[in-house]
């Protein structure tokens, strides 16, 4: 997948404010190119999580059109979506979507076993760098949200991707860990030539964004 194209997309809930919309995303024609990085800045409640959900096929409550290259995502079947989620798009959800019953390591493995994308050694190294090596056998439910964010990042890296969506990835991280997280994400994206789309409501990762978009 080389580009994601948004054509006049608008969440249905904003329909009544259609005429008042002032956004670089909603009701615009916007293209995310593979290899570029984007920062989507937004105020709370402007629909940035909705944007991730639409592109990831998790929600469909929008008008307009979203295209993967030239293909309308409304035309994708179950098999296509599974394929997209395994090979083309990776998301670091704002609410993380981890499994609290499993340990930190198991949460990563449940994904990596599916894709077989990274070695155990690489995963352990990330745990180490992100400062959660001592937590890898703890149930995720017992970790702080900041620690969980780091586990979720490692999990979302355990697949090949053309685009990486990070929905407020560092909201609960300190400066140092944000930096490490940014580095890891950048190097993985560069390695794969992938695009990065980061959303933020204030605090954002320091990266050389190709474009900053106001939602």
């Amino acid at each position, binding site marked *: 997948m080389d580009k994601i194209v948004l054509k006049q997309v608008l969440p249905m809930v904003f329909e009544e404010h259609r005429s008042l919309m002032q956004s670089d995303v909603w009701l615009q024609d916007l293209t995310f190119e593979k290899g570029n990085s984007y920062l989507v800045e937004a105020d709370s409640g402007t629909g940035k999580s909705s944007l991730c959900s639409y592109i990831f096929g998790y*929600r469909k409550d929008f008008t307009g059109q979203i295209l993967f290259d030239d293909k309308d995502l409304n035309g994708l079947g179950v098999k296509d979506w599974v394929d997209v989620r395994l090979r083309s798009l990776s998301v670091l959800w704002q609410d993380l979507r981890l499994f609290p019953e499993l340990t930190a390591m198991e949460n990563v493995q449940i994904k990596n076993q599916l894709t077989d994308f990274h070695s155990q050694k690489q995963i352990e190294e990330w745990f180490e760098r992100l400062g959660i090596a001592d937590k890898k056998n703890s149930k995720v439910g017992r970790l702080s949200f900041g620690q969980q964010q780091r586990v979720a990042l490692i*999990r979302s890296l355990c697949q090949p991707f053309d685009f990486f969506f990070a929905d407020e990835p560092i909201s609960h991280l300190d400066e140092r860990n944000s930096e490490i997280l940014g580095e890891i994400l950048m190097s993985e994206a560069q390695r794969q030539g992938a695009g990065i789309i980061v959303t933020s409501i204030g605090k954002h990762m320091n990266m050389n964004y190709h474009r900053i978009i106001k939602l």
Partner: protein
Amino acid sequence: MKLVWKLLRQHISIGQFTGFTMANLIGMVIILLGFQFYQDVSSIFSSKESFMKKDYIVVTKQVGAVSALTGKGNSFAPAEIEALEKQPFTRSLGQFLPADFSVSASMGMKNIGIQFSTEMFFESVPDDYVDYNSSQWNYREGDELIPIILPRNYLNLYNFGYAQTRGLPKLSENVISMISLDISIRGQGKSGHYQGKIVGFSNRLNTILVPKAFLDWANKEYGSGEKVYPSRLILEVSNPTDDRIAKYFQDKGYETEDDKLEQGKTIWFLKIVVGIVMAVGILITVLALYILMLSIYLLVEKNSAKLENLLLIGYSPSRVAWPYQLLTLGLNAIVLVLAFIILMIVRKYYVEMLEALYPDIIIGGIGKTVLIGIVLFIMVSFMNVLVIRQKIAVIWERKD
């Protein structure tokens, strides 16, 4: 897959699944046992009579005082045969053809000095009504050997009457079949000698039966050529329990030679009872399936967040559904195996009783029942697999 299972097994209610397993087991056992019992018991009614097809009855006229004296009126006139043929319960009708010549037979072992000789008679029915190995049951003009079916009574009369009082050896059916009879035929100034071979014994056909081909030829060869009317008819009916048969026979003064009608009724009642029992079994199985469906709905509902997350991190719906499908397949397989074990145990018990009551009974296998069990397993499993898949699809589509 281990991790997925670790996640999805959360909220599995042992109680609910045990309930399903028990209910399904009870239903399955009732269905299989009902069917197997019917199979085993119905063999009592078909017993040894292997060469007469199932739903045939032999019809005669009542022998009254007048007909006994005149020697007339015991045979069926063509109009009567035609009327009987047209009855709604009649599927087909065959005539007993009597021999139009005299026959005597002798048998014995000359070297030990035992020799019987007797006047006798032959009759035949169309070959369609004789359900016997056709390679043995045929005759071609010029053959020396005539296959014969004897009434079993004859053998009993000899074994338990004659042989017993005279201190002669008793003969089994197998031994008799090895002995050949010397048959002499006389008629129209001609005579002939043949070998008779007893190929079977009949409980129901109270006559000495030879192939129709032989009698057709021999009547021409040795007979007077007069048209002989049959005194007995063999009737194939759609349903021996049909009460119109009994009524018609009563009106016309016909009789049947055997208790076929009674047996038919017994089998009919047996079928009804087994039918009811199996219907109860099916009902229980359906209810068990319903319990399982509810349990799965509840389970999927409780685990819906986990299922959704698995789908979002790239697991396909079929992969997510598989652990639950495997679980129900496993339960169904356990139920199937347990049902067969229970069936074998119960069957062993009642077969012993049946064999004590009816020493002659030939107990069949359980092949058909196994097949029914497997078909049920496949049907129930198929439903389970389908419902789970649909439920996961609902989560995928977020239609809830």
